[in-house]
Structure formats: C-alpha cells, structure tokens
C-alpha cells in the first residue's frame, strides 16, 4: 500500500505536528477524561510528524526539524512523568497547547506567524485556567518580551514590508532600533541579567513540568538563531554585548545558586546558567561555539525537564517542602530516582561520558576563541554549577534514611522507562557524539560562513537604512 504524496509534504506534516496537539488540548478541555492517554497520543503524533520532517530535511538545514522532534519527545515524556495528582485535563491541555505553539515557532519562516506562536506559547502562563504565574515577575517578563518582539517585527515590516525571514537574511532590517528590541525580547524571555529573577520565581511557584517545558522551548535562543544572527550579521560591535550579558548571567546565577536551598529554584538557576552558555556559544561566531551551543540546547532541555520531573515525583512522594538545607536521605527510598537525578544533573554540568561533556567542550572552546578573557568565566560558572548540583544531590538523596512512610515508591515502571530512555540518550550521545555533533556542525558552518561573508562586506556596522525589497508572499 503506497502513501499518497501529499501526506509526506512538509506543510501537511507541519500542520499535523502543530494542529493535533491543539486539537487534543481542545478535546481534553471538553471531555476531561483520559487526559494522559489523549496527551500521549497527540504528542506521539507530533513525534512521528517531526521525525518524518527531519528525515526529509537536508543535513545542513535540519535544525528546526530536530528541535521539533526534541520538543515533541520532551512533551511526550513529561506527559508520562506527570504524577497522577497533577494529571488533570487542565495540565495536559496546557502542555499540549504549549507543544503546538512551540512547534509552530520552530517551523515557521514567517515573521507574523513567529510573533503569533510567541504570544500563544505564553498564553497558558497568563490564563488562570492553566498555569497562570503567581508572582509578578514571570508575567512582567513574558509580556515585556512579547511587546519588544512585536515592536521589533513592526519596525521590520514598516522598513521592508517583507514577512518572510528567508528574504530578510543579511539585510539588517529595521536597523539598530529593531536589533535592540530583538535583544530586549531575548533578555526578557531567556532570563538574561538583569531580567533573570522571573525564571526562579516561576520554577518555584508554578507547576514543575509545564514550567520546565516553557523554559526549554528556549525561545530566546530561537530568536537569536532564527532572526538576530541571520538578519543582522553585520553587528560585530554591538552583538557581543548580548554575549557578555549571557556570560555574566551564567556566572551571576551560578554564584546565586551556591547558597540556594530551595531545590526548584536551585535547578532553575542551574538551567538558567547553563542555558545562558547557549547564547554565548551562538554569539561566539565560531563553528565549534555554534555547534556546541546547539548540542548544549539538546542537553539542557532533556536534563532540565528530567530534573524538574524527578523533583516533582519526590515532592509528591515525600512532601512538598523539600529543602537542600539538610540531608534528607531519599536515596534509600528511591535509588533509581537518585541515580537518574545524578546522571541528568552531571550531564547538565558536563560530566565525561555524557553528551554534556562534548557540548561544554565545544562551547568553552568557542567562547574562549572569540572572547579570550571573558570566556574564562564560562568554565568557572560551569564548575560552580557542578558544585551546586552536587550539593543539591547530596542533600536530597544522601544522609540518614527517613522513616515514617507507609509507601516508599521508587520510580514506577512508566517513569523508569522514560527516565532510562533519557539516560540512554545523554550517555550514548556522550559515547558517540559525532552522530549528533556532525549534523549540528553542518548548520554551524553555514551560519559562520554567512556571518563572515556579511561582516567582510561591511564590518562593524548595523545598517541604519536597510534596502527595500519587494513584498513576498507567506510560505
């Protein structure tokens, strides 16, 4: 039986990957039954769609398809990891809505669609029916980033009347104001200093796994990779500011994490510090830095979702008030959760034998090549993060075994298989990294070549008066 040609067409597959989760979100909100099953099926459809898209894409242009696959897998895993207590129609619906919005942002080549996806991705965190943040800073940061992006896209449209990202490449559309607004959008959405505090707030007060998914959409890095680097390649004198801010954030947050006792905040700080490294790698303008940043994106996303998931499982089993201020000895009750926690955590901070080691190695080389002195701060931040993570691990899992539980469950089978799959990915990725790095390397080479070509044409300047080109239709 042959498959009709239109089924394998990219727009159809993208539509299915984005549309099915949205449809499932509406369905769950309506029927409110079998939420986990519907969520898993919808996420699985997105996985299949993204997988076919990735298989069809050329090696050097497969970044966004790979990210779609990654996020679909993360959502599938999060849906399975959710404790029964959290597995409500609202939670699953919100997660699926976030999945659809994020995949739309990854897949689009249109400025207006990107803006719409950006807005839709924060809707679950604004609406009280889903995961509305309980403190002001997350709301303010998410809204400010959206306003900044909307203004930047408005400026670009006014100056060029083009909505296709491909046609704007290398033109510096909107000049310095548009560039500055895009950088502001990145700073607020990514949690770059001084707008870093909202990440820990939402991690502490919000639902663990949906928050992890929001943070690991990495919309800030997406904006850098999708708009800032290709559209504004002639920004040698301005762009490093974002990199410096990212490196300062990595160190600042790493220092902040050293004394933090709330496990959720601590993991949020670690994730923020490590994901700030992604920005500095993307900005390094070296092939190894860019490739390292993209691989690190994968590592941070998988590790962070797993760490938040394990923390939530511990909260559900052992009480909500987990703390890193004293030893809780939970490894005695949950040894497999402990081992999974330590593997994901050490992958996040670059232990050899995990994919994190390769990405950190590439990132550090890229950052040091491009910024000899300030790049030294990256390994220092990573070392501090490692110490903070290990402190959290020892305090949560080691120490005198607590008693008084009637049921002391380790990882349940569905949790165990999902965590084992994640562990296998980071470990096999670490043992055979070339399979992953070589694809990201091809993309990094193209980005680096584009940057250098544009920089050679007109080094050190952002176009104040960009060229106008004819309007192109939406793809």
């Amino acid at each position, binding site marked *: 039986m042959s498959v009709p040609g239109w089924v394998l067409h990219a727009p159809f597959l993208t539509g299915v990957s984005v549309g099915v989760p949205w449809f499932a979100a509406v369905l769950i909100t309506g029927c409110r039954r079998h939420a986990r099953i519907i969520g898993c099926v919808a996420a699985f459809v997105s996985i299949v769609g993204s997988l076919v898209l990735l298989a069809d894409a050329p090696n050097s242009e497969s970044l966004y398809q790979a990210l779609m696959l990654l996020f679909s897998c993360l959502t599938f895993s999060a849906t399975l990891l959710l404790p029964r207590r959290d597995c409500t129609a609202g939670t699953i619906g919100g997660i699926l809505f976030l999945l659809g919005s994020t995949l739309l942002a990854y897949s689009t080549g249109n400025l207006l669609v990107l803006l719409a996806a950006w807005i839709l991705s924060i809707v679950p965190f604004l609406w009280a029916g889903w995961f509305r943040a309980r403190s002001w800073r997350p709301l303010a940061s998410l809204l400010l980033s959206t306003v900044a992006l909307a203004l930047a896209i408005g400026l670009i449209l006014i100056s060029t009347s083009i909505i296709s990202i491909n046609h704007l490449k290398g033109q510096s559309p909107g000049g310095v104001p548009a560039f500055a607004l895009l950088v502001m959008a990145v700073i607020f959405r990514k949690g770059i200093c001084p707008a870093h505090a909202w990440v820990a707030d939402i991690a502490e007060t919000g639902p663990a796994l949906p928050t992890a998914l929001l943070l690991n959409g990495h919309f800030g890095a997406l904006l850098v990779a999708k708009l800032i680097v290709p559209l504004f390649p002639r920004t040698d004198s301005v762009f490093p500011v974002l990199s410096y801010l990212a490196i300062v954030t990595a160190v600042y947050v790493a220092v902040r994490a050293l004394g933090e006792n709330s496990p959720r905040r601590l993991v949020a700080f670690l994730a923020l510090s490590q994901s700030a490294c992604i920005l500095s790698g993307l900005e390094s303008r070296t092939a190894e830095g860019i490739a390292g940043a993209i691989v690190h994106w994968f590592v941070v996303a998988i590790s962070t979702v797993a760490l938040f998931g394990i923390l939530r499982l511990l909260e559900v089993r052992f009480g909500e*008030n987990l703390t890193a201020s004293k030893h809780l000895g939970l490894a005695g009750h949950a040894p497999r959760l402990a081992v*999974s926690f330590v593997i994901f955590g050490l992958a996040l901070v670059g232990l050899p034998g995990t994919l994190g080691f390769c990405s950190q190695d590439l990132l550090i080389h890229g950052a040091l090549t491009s910024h000899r002195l300030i790049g030294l701060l990256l390994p220092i931040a990573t070392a501090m993060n490692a110490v903070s993570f290990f402190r959290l691990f020892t305090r949560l899992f080691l120490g005198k075994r607590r008693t008084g539980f009637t049921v002391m469950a380790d990882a349940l089978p569905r949790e165990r298989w999902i965590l084992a799959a994640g562990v296998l990915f980071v470990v096999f990725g670490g043992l055979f990294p070339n399979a992953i790095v070589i694809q990201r390397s091809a993309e990094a080479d193209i980005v680096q070549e584009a940057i250098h070509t544009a920089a050679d044409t007109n080094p050190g300047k952002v176009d104040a008066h960009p060229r106008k080109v004819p309007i192109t239709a939406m793809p």
Partner: protein
Amino acid sequence: MNFSQAILVFVVAAPGVVFAVFALLWLLGWTPGERFLSWITGLTFAASAFGITALVWTMASGSTVTVAFGNWFAVGDYHFPLVLMADRLSLPFLALTVVLSGLVAQFSATYLHREPGFLRFFLLLHLFAFGSLLAFAAGSFDLLAAGWELVGITSVLLVGFFQLRPAPVENGLRVFGIYRACDIGLFVGVFAMHHWAGTASFDRGFPTLTGAQALIVCLLLLLPAAGKAAQIPFSGWLPRAMEGPTPSSAIFYGAISIHAGAYLLLRAQPLLARSAVASALVMLIGLATAIHGTIVGRASADAKTSLAYATLTQVGIVFIEIGFGWKWLAVAHILGNATVRTMQFLRAPSMLHDYHQMHSAIGGEVSPTGKQIEELLPARIQLWLYRWAFDRGHLDTILDRWVIDPLLQASNYLAKHDRVGMSWIAIRPSNAAPISIQGPAKQGND
C-alpha cells in the same frame, strides 16, 4: 587492528563495559548477586592483567602501541582525537591500575560482604578503573581530561559511600568542589594547546609551543595536577577523603588517583623542560607538601590519615623529582609508593591484630624507635608546631575564610537583592517557604 592494539583496547574498555552493562540492568530493575558480581569483576581484571602482560611482551623492543579511532567529534578546525597509546610511560601506570584494582576488588568482596552498597561500590570501582585506564592510555590531553574527570567523580562518590552519615557526604562535597575548581586549569590548558599549536595530541610528538606559551600551559596543568595529588594548598581534602571505605582509600589515595597528578606532569615533561620557572614551581610545591605532609602526619591520631599523609609526603618528593626532570626515578618512586601504600591501607583495619601477632611472635613489646627529630626543637616551637599540625596547617581554615565564605556571602547578598525586588510589591518571598520536611503531604505512589 593488530594483536597489540586489540589488547590495548580490551584492557581500557573492559571495566567500562562491565560498568555500563550492570548499571543499565540495575536501572531497569535487576540486581546481581554478590558472588556473581565479584566473579565477573575478578574475571575482568584477570583477563586485563593477562592482556597487560601480553602488551609488555610485545612492547619489549621499546615500541609504542597506538590505536587511532579518528575523531570522537569534530567541528570546523577543532577536533577531539580518540587515540589510545601505550608507551614506556603509560604502561607501568596501566599495569598498576589493573593489578591493584583486581586485588582491591577481591579484598572488597569479603570486606564489604552484605554491605548495602556492595553493588554501588563495585560499579564505581569499574568506572574508576575505566577512567584511570582511559587517562593513562590517552594519546591526547583531550582524552586524558575525559578520563581524569571520571576518576574525580568516582572518587567523590566513594568518599560519600557511607551515605547515612552526614560527615562523609559533606566531605565528598568538599572534595568535589576542589576537584572541579582545579580542573578549570586542565580545560583552559587544553584549549591553550589547541589555540597555539592546533592540537593537544602527543601520540605523534608533543605540541610545539614557544617558551612563554609552554610556561602558561604548564602553570595551567599544574593546577589540576596539584589538586588531584592534594599538593599545597589543596592538601586539606585528603584527610576528609578517608571517610570512604578502606578499599577505596587504598586504591584512590594510596595508589592511583593520588599519583594521577604526577602522571599529568610526567606527560607534560617536554613542556616542563622548556620552562625553568614552571619546573621550579613544581619543585617548590612538592617541597612544601613533603614538609607539610610529614609534620601533619606525625600529629594524626588515626591510622588511615597517617597513611594518607605519608603518601602525600612521598608524592611531594615525586613532584620534586619531576621538577628536576628525573622522569624514570619518579616513575619508579610512584610504583613503589603505590604498592606499599595499598598494602598498608588494606591492612589498616586489622593493624591492632597484626601488632598483637607480632608481639606474641617476638615474645614482648616492640622496642621504641628512639627520639623523634622534632624533639630537637625548643619546647615553645614544638607546641606551636603541634597546634599547626593538629589543624592540618590551617589549610581548610584559609580555604573557608578566603574562598568559600566570600562566595557564600556573595550568594546571600544576591539572594537578598532578589528578595528586596519582591518585597517592593508586597509579595511573599518564595524563599521564605518552610525549610523542613514535615512528612509526606499525601501517602501513596502518586
């Protein structure tokens, strides 16, 4: 791949494969029995020992065995070469690791019988052996760094082996912090070699660097070497590491891990030889550590700490030998010291029993050894020296006061800064949540 190359790959990979298989099976729910695990472990190290013997035989003519797997990963001009190499320098260390790991494993099968962490110990022992063999057989500093990190993390996890007591766990954290801080030098040093020489491989000759570049690289490599070898000013972690089980103390701090720093410097000998300043610094650190080790060791009250400081003193002397460029003397010294210390550590738990046996054999008390050299000093200086030695040279106090406390103060200041931002709009600081566990909010699996 010829016979020698296959053996080298087998020797390095065998403990790693055993670790990976057992860890994965355990993660999926299967726990092997003690007897089966120790049998597989014995078989692995025995086969590796035979492999090493064959390797020595094939390398008798002075040849070097190199196995190049290409690049582990490569991006643009940067590549991470995956090259294993057995030469006259690495072979003794490979043999030492295989033999002592096998012996310690056999000892531990009895020593840790019915211990709750039996499987964990053996898994970590395999991972440690894999990391050490990888570091010693590496044909580039990149790969050496990967093995180096594995040795570090297993070392830390074994320090905290007795996880029910807070002290070993906290000491493990301290050791981890010092390792990570010092390893920054290794990563930056490797980067510097890539940057200046285009490679950090030494399987086809050493990277070519100018005098100033060699000095910088040596100083960077000296940091992790001193950290791993517990040299001044990082010696404070060594007595803390004695909280681990005796077999791990024997293999880590009596034999392999403690000498890994010296191996790194021996590997970097061609660079050290080009820089008199770096060589002098290595000797100075070694001398200071040797003096520190012998004085503090005399004031140590327990057997394992005394042995640790005795090892430290010898490693300090090894550093001096490396500084002088006496490479093969240093290697011989390391082999002798590692073997003797392993035996002493393993006998430490039954030291009293040994003494009683010795006394009954000779028919009375052993005669005193005579005067101690410190008795030649004035009484006041003796007292001061005793207090200095009792506090282990104040090294931990200095580290706490000048590094850890300022970092924690900075962290608290930043936390306060964050909270002030919240209090402006009258929202309860999220950090103010209760910090103790009152018990599970709800019983049940989910």
